Each structure stands twice: as C-alpha cells, then as structure tokens.
C-alpha cells in the first residue's frame, strides 16, 4: 500500500460513534475495505489530462458527422436538396431518411416503445429535430456542408404546452400513430373511492398547484460517439457516452440487425450522465449507419445547444396535490393529479411497466392510509422525454409533491412543519412497511434523522430569529425549509423492472490471479461516481485483500458481464450486491482449497474477517490468506476442485432499497430585490452502510447543488412557436460556485436488511430531497403574509412578484437616499 494513495482517517472521523464505521476499533478493517475513506483510484488520469472521453478518440481515417436540424417546431418537410453540400471536396456523404430507410434504419424505438424518426422523412415534430446528416473529413467542413443542405419546410401550428395539447382543436403532433389527439396514456394508482371518502370526512383539507418545470441533466460533457464498422470482421464498435453499455448493445443489435456478438459498445470515461446518457439518440444511429455505409470510423459529438434542445429533458409535471388531515395534524389521505408533457415522443427512460415511473412513491415518509393519483400524459411539439434526471423514475416529482403538501398542511393547521412530519412518520417498528400505493419499504428511522437535523441546525433558535425579523420589519426575511424524504432506488427486481424487455439485474465477475491480486469486472458504468474505488473496497472487504490489489474494469461489452448500467442510484444496491455475492462465491471456493492446503476438514476452516484470512478452528496461527490460496488454486489445486479462483454473480434484487434523509435549508429573502440567499444547507442522508464516506459526501454536495439549480435557476423554456428559449448555457443557467453555499453533510446508518452489505445507494437522494427544502424555505419566509407556494425556478423577479402580491415587497426607491439636489439636477438639463 502506498502512502501516496491511502490516507489515515482524520481525527474527526475516528471519533465518530454514529453507527458508521469506526476504523479505530480493533477489527482489522484497515485494508481500504468498507467504510474507509480511500482516495479515488481513478483520479490520476483525470488530474493529469489523460482521461479518455469520447471526443478524445481519434481513429485512422475518421470522419465527422454534423446533423442538419429543423429551425421549426412543427413543419412538413417538402424537399431536401443535398447537392451543394455533396459538391464540397471534404464532404464524403450526406444522409437523409431515404438513405437510412434503404438500410431499415429510418426509425428507432424509444425506451418506452414509441417510435422516433432517426432523420425526419415527413414531418418535423420539435425544434432542432434531426433532418439530415453531413459526413465530412473534418469538423469544420462537416458544419460547412450542413449549411449547404437546403430543406424546404411547410410550417404548421405547433402545440407547445400539455395544457393546450389537451384541447380537441389542438394541432395533432403524432398523426403517424393513427390518433386524432395528443394523448399518450392515463395512469392511475391507489383507491380513488376510499381516498375521496377520506377527503369528504376530513376536517382539514389543503390543495396546492405546483409545476415541476422542464429540466435538462446537462452533464458538462455532451453526448457523442465514434462508430467504427469493421468490414473484415463484420463488427460494429461504438465508443459512446453511455450509462448502460450492455443495454445499448442489445438495442443497437435490435435496431441494426447486426448480430449482438458483432456489436461492441465501449463507454470510456464519461463526463457526467445524470440520466442524459441512458437513452439512444438519433446521432448515435446516424454515425453508426454512416460508418457502415462508408466503412470508415465516424465521430458525432453534440454541441451544447444540441444537447439541451434535442436530448431527453426531465420532469415537466404539472401537479395538483390534495392532502386531508385531522385537526391535530394526522394525515388521512393524499391525492394527486398530474398533467405530464412528454414532448414529441414518449422517450422516458424507465422500466417499461411503469409509464409514470415510480411516481406512486408519493406518500413519502408518512403513514397515510388512503392515497390516489393519476398521471395524464400528452405529446407536444417539444423535445422528447422525460428521463429520470438523477432520479429513480419520477421519484423526484413525487417527493416534491408530498414534501410541499406536508408543508402546506402545516401552514393550514398553523403547526410547526417539523411536528406535522413527526406525527405522520412511518414508525421505525413498522418496517418492512407496506405503503398504501403498494411499495414495501425496507427499513427506516425517520424520527432519528429529523431529530438530529433539528438539533444540528439549532432549529428553535432559527424559529426565534425568524420571528424577531418579522417583528422588526427587517428588509430580509428568514425562511426555514424542511424535507424529510424517502427515496426508492436500486431497480429491479427483474420481474417488475426491465429496460427494453431485459430484466434489471446487475453483475460482477471477480478473478483472483495466481499472484494474489484481483480484477473485477462490473456491469454498471461509472460517470464520475468512483466505481473503480468503491467496488474495489467491497472486494477488499470481502476477500481480505488490500484495495490497491483490486482493479475494477467497466464499460466494455466485449469483456464485462452483462449489466443494465448506472442510473437511478442502482450501482451500489444492485451492482454492489452482485460484487459482494461474487466475492463470497470466491471465498467459498477458497475455503475448500484452504482445507486442502491446511489438511483439515472444510468444516474446521473458519474465515477471520479481522485478519482477512482463513484459519484452522481453534488454531489461529495456522492460517492462509486469499493471496496464498490464490497461488494454490492455480499451482496446487485440490483433486476435486477446478483450478483457478474466480466467480461471477448476476444479482436480481429482491426489492428496491429506500434511502432517506432530513434536509434543512435556511434562506434569506430580500424584500427589495426578491433575491433568495441560501444561508445554510444541512443534508443528513441515511443510505445504509457507507462504502466510502468521502465519496458519499461528494455525491451529496453535487446532488444538493443540482437541487439548488432546480429550485433557483434551471428551466428549459419555449416560446409559443416552439422555439427553445433556454437552449444553451447562456440561458439554461447552471449554478456556479457563487450560488452554491457550503453544504453541511451528516448521516445516520439504517442498513437495508435485504442487501448483502446493508447499503442503499445515495447518488440521487440529494437531487431528489433538496428542491422541496429550498422551496419550503422560501415559502416559509413569507407564510406569515399568506404565501402558500412559489413555483420553481424561484428567480428574483418571480419571488418579488410573490412578495409584492403578499404586501411584503419594499419598493427599492423608498430605501434609496438620493444625494442629488433635485433642483440642481434639473438645472443641468
């Protein structure tokens, strides 16, 4: 172990008695196993500039693909003239829908079994949709060529909002589906009759409209690929920005007809994904088709505007929530109606049996007897979606709904929002808990998390400060927002959850080499989560190896076992479980070899986790490490055992995992400007056992930043003509280092009882849990004046309008002190 790569746990960490790992305790966990802060193994290539992202790949004879896109949101394509482009020396080919149709590639399936044109033949359905592709010898020439493709359009009236798409007279987006309206599906959950009855009987009911705006995951690396058809081997290799390389291989094979053993997907270093890189996009198919036709490698890499304007958006749920309760705040029922905009194609990326994803988790952390919900989804002339942006399939929308409704109920009852939550939490004795919408929550202790959160932020003092400011008529109001969310992550089980029919299991293969170190190949795919470190830690823990002696490989379908990929926080719950189980299979075989080596019966060999070795029962000095056993497995294998020491596991989880958290956001709202300043953000996450606390905290920081972006800045907007008006980083605003405050992280540990290492996953919790905390805080600051809701993003102008309507706004002019003598000033005129 090198001191350069491994660090001693810091003092604070050692003192921890919070149920998390405590390396100071004498149990031998100092090999970089579970719970240790191991610095990341993958970092060196990134900090030296030697990462290998898709756009870094250069191949002999490689061509560049530029896509010609429609300036209109809704238009018939009258003609496409490619002549001027084709005359350019550098342009090798111009592809249109006709060319793709010749290879049966004119359309592709979306992950929700809709059909999307790869290149438009008849009718454009959203702005920037793909119409033609120019393949040229260099990036600039490809752009020049695209400028020279002449497309004639006959424009049609677009329908841009779901609300308008409902109208009988609305333009029809999808005539190709043989329907005369824009309706996609109506989904329903829960017991409507019982819920309505509960509402009728309830002394207190609250209703609130809220719009979860259209977002884009916007990883800093856009989508792209290098497709390379090898005519000699008849093999297609695609290096692509993929969160799910194996699923993409299957889809590529299904779409192209190329046998799956002749398709290789390599996902090299991926510059962030957040759900954006789960679907297949037309650009990938065009590049592959071009490579096939031209027999040369073809690169396609999006510009930022193409990324935001055409690849899958997230959210866009227009929700009406209702909550019913007793006078002392016991929630008896919750109901929600959602109007969902899916854009021009139903291109959500979620298990196929869940058209509204896992939205039915909207009862949250609360024991609510009656629940009912509907989602009505519509096509519009906007980009297709909506995918799960750092989210398990609409859990983000569900958590926002319930956490906002609980706050609204507290306001109606004039109760403290913390008390309403406490009163309605699913008690810790109730786990496993069956929710009224049909989930089985694995484990939780919500009250402990809330208590710790309130104590940490000194909640009572904050409430006093809030009242003091109101009493003093301060220019800045204080708001305290809570979010005590429950997540649902780690899909499968395979029988419930699939992607394009493939069950959502995941896999790991461990090979222990003759010299005692190990290579682990996993089916999940990192986009920055640090799998090369955390998965090595799991194996180090299970096999008593040093983390430095374990190498993790991922992202190449030719070598890795089949997996469904990384999204919806499923890597640790599913892939991590597969890795632990594969390691235990290795250990099982190692035990048999140990018995042969130690010349005792197998039942007399015991595994000692402290030393990371087997020893003879009652004789700890007669021991063998996995390193030693590995040698024996290749060089002195027992007569009744196969040589070698390796195992593979395909893990189908018995249930999802249910991480949770208690977040507190403290804001100051400026009554003059409407500006919201996040003074403090406290995030307590319980993701069960933590494999690497440093990485867990990093995930929380990043997710909270995204949640703050959601709450304060981000919105993919359209005008009435269907033009994207926030389609680049000048208008789609990502938070910078100036908007994100220092985030205070904290944790409790409630292991998942069905997971081999008690872990639950954490990546998406902060993105899911933080937006309602921020909105609740802003509403909280103004609730004394009757404000019950502010829609996201809470830009200063929007907040100022709410302040103004509530009579809280201060006219900036009132506070201005003019030094200018008015008479003198006018004299100057």
């Amino acid at each position, binding site marked *: 172990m090198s*001191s350069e790569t491994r*660090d001693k746990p810091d003092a*604070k*960490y050692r003192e921890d008695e*919070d*149920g*998390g790992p405590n390396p*100071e305790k*004498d*149990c*031998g*966990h100092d090999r970089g196993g579970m719970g240790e802060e191991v*610095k990341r193994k993958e970092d*060196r290539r990134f*900090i*030296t*500039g030697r*990462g290998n*992202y898709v*756009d870094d790949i*250069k191949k002999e004879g490689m061509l560049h693909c530029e896509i010609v896109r429609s300036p209109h949101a809704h238009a018939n394509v009258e003609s496409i003239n490619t002549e001027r482009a084709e005359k350019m020396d550098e342009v090798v080919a111009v592809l249109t829908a006709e060319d793709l149709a010749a290879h049966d590639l004119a359309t592709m399936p979306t992950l929700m079994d809709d059909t999307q044109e790869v290149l438009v033949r008849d009718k454009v359905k959203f702005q920037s949709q793909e119409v033609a592709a120019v393949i040229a010898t260099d990036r600039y020439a490809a752009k020049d060529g695209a400028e020279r493709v002449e497309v004639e359009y006959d424009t049609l009236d677009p329908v841009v909002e779901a609300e308008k798409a409902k109208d009988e007279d609305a333009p029809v987006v999808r005539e190709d589906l043989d329907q005369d309206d824009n309706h996609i599906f109506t989904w329903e959950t829960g017991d409507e009759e019982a819920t309505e009855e509960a509402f009728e009987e309830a002394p207190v009911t609250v209703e609130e409209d809220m719009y979860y705006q259209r977002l884009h995951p*916007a*990883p*800093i*690396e856009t989508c792209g690929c290098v497709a390379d058809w090898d005519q000699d081997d008849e093999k297609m290799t695609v290096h692509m920005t993929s969160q799910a390389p194996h699923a993409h291989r299957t889809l590529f094979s299904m779409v192209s007809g190329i046998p799956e053993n002749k398709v290789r997907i390599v996902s090299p270093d991926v*510059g*962030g994904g957040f759900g954006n890189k789960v679907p297949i996009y037309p650009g990938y198919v065009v590049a592959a088709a071009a490579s096939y036709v031209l027999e040369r490698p073809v690169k396609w890499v999006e510009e*930022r505007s193409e990324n935001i304007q055409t690849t899958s958006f997230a959210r866009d749920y227009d929700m009406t929530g209702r909550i019913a309760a007793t006078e002392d705040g016991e929630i008896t029922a919750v109901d929600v109606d959602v109007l969902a905009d899916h854009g021009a194609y139903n291109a959500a990326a979620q298990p196929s049996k869940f058209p509204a994803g896992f939205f039915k988790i909207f009862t949250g952390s609360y024991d609510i007897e009656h629940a009912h919900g509907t989602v009505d989804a519509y096509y519009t002339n906007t980009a297709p979606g909506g995918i799960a942006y750092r989210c398990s399939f609409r859990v983000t929308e569900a958590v926002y709904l319930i956490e906002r409704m609980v706050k609204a109920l507290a306001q109606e009852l004039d109760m403290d929002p913390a008390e309403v939550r406490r009163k309605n939490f699913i008690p810790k004795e109730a*786990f496993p808990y069956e929710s009224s919408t049909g989930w089985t929550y694995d484990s939780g202790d919500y009250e402990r998390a809330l208590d*710790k959160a309130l104590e940490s932020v000194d909640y009572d003092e904050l409430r006093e400060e809030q009242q003091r400011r109101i009493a003093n008529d301060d220019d800045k109001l204080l708001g305290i927002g809570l979010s005590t969310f429950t997540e649902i992550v780690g899909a499968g089980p395979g029988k419930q959850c699939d992607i394009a029919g493939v069950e959502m299991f995941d896999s790991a293969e461990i090979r222990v080499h003759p010299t005692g170190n190990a290579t682990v190949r996993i089916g999940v795919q990192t986009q*920055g989560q640090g799998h090369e470190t955390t998965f090595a830690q799991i194996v180090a*823990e299970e096999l008593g190896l040093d983390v430095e002696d374990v190498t993790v490989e991922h992202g190449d379908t030719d070598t890795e076992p089949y997996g469904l990929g990384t999204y919806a926080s499923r890597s640790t719950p599913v892939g991590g479980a597969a890795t*632990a189980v594969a390691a*235990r299979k290795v250990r099982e075989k190692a035990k048999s070899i140990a018995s042969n080596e130690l010349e005792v019966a197998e039942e007399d060999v015991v595994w000692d*986790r*402290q030393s990371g070795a087997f020893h003879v029962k009652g004789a700890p000095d007669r021991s063998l490490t996995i390193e030693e056993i590995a040698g024996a497995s290749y060089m002195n294998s027992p007569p009744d055992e196969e040589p070698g020491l390796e195992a593979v596991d395909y893990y*189908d*989880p*018995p249930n999802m995992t249910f991480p949770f958290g208690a977040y507190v956001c403290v804001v100051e709202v400026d009554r003059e400007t409407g500006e919201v300043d996040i003074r403090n953000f406290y995030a*307590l996450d319980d993701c*069960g*056992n933590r494999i690497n606390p440093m990485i867990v*905290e*990093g995930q929380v920081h*990043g*997710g909270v*930043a995204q949640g703050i972006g959601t709450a304060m800045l981000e919105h993919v907007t359209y005008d009435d003509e269907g033009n994207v008006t926030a389609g*680049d*980083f*000048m208008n789609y605003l*990502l938070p910078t*280092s100036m908007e*994100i405050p*220092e985030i*205070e*992280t904290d944790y*409790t*540990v409630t*292991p998942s009882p069905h*997971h081999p290492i008690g872990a639950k996953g954490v990546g998406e919790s902060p993105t899911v849990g933080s937006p309602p905390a921020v909105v609740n805080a802003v509403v909280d600051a103004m609730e004394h004046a009757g404000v019950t809701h502010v829609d996201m993003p809470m830009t200063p102008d929007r907040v100022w309008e709410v302040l103004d309507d509530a009579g809280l706004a201060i006219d900036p002019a009132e506070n201005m002190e003019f030094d200018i003598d008015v008479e003198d000033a006018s004299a100057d005129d």
Partner: protein
Amino acid sequence: MTKKEISLTINGTEHELEVEPRKLLVHAIREDLDLTGTHIGCDTGNCGACTVYMDGQAVKSCLTFAVQADGSEITTVEGMEDHPDAGMGESDLHPIQEGFREMHGLQCGYCTPGMIMSARALLEENPDPTEEEIRESISGNLCRCTGYQNIVKAIQYAADVMNGREPPESPVEHGEAAEPEAASDGGTPMCEADDCCMDVDTDFEPPGGDHK
C-alpha cells in the same frame, strides 16, 4: 480556406501550425496537437472546461481563435506536472492537481482540467486566497458533479502546500455523533470482533428475486 502559419509554445514546446483563421484554439490544441486534456463543454464560453493558461492569464480556448494565440506561451493541464511547483506536496504532481485528488475535488473529471488552470491563474496572482476569492475565481468554470465545495478545498489545499502549511488530510466532515446504539437497527453484526467498526452481515444470503 486559406491557412495561416502560427507558432504556439505549449507546455514549453514550440509548435508550428497551419490553421484556418476560423479555427478555435481549443481545436488546435485538442485535434492538431493531440492534447486532449483540455475539454469542450458548451461552445459559448460559459462552462470553462476549455480553460488554458495563456501568457499569464486563464483563457477560454473555445472563445479564442488559434491565430489570436500566435506567438503565445500556453500551459495546458498536461504541462502541470512539469511546472516548477510540481512535487512540492506529497506526490510528483503540482499541488493543485494533488489537492483535487486529496480533497475529492473531482468526480467525472470533465471540468477538472479547466478548474486546475483557473486555479493556477488565481494562485499565481494571489498565492493565499480566501474562500470567497477562490469561489469568485472559479465562477467561470461550471461543474455539475461536486457542488464546488471540494474544489474550493482542493485549491485551499494547494495554497496550504505552496505556503508551507500542512494541508488537511481529508475533506470528510461529519455532524455531531448520534446515539451509538442507533446503528444496530435493521442489520446484524458483521464480524466476530465484539467491537467491529461496521454493521454488515458478511455471511448474509440475499433472499433473491422473484425467479430465484
């Protein structure tokens, strides 16, 4: 299109290039010189993934034509290991690079080279910046993974090393400890040690999915 001859000194090596006048500096660096550590994230100068250090300043190379850089001295992330300050910390790398690793200042790594170059420009000008100054200096570099918190710590780490102070060993923070018995619910003890640090049952057999 007519090409123009230019000379760029990158990471100490002089390169003669023929480029179209419209060619962006970032493409000259990435595609003509194969230095792919400098990235492209937005095309509009907002994200800063393309930041290089040019003639004493952090410059967004996607907003600069290669011909504008004619005669310039440029450092990209690939040149940081050869910087005179490299090796000041515990590794052979520049303290800024080391700080990013030690403080977990990167996740996907895509914005990291631009962040490192912005940090270098800051520390050249202001060797011991405050947190606010660090935040302001990287406000032209977008990161979607880290929430910036550990990037700030990474740059503070570098400032510590370069100012002869002992940098922190870890970015990990915890709140106050809760009641110690709390961890035992939902799981079973893992190792035979009475005082084990973890709460995991390693012999646990998962119940299996519906079809197992």
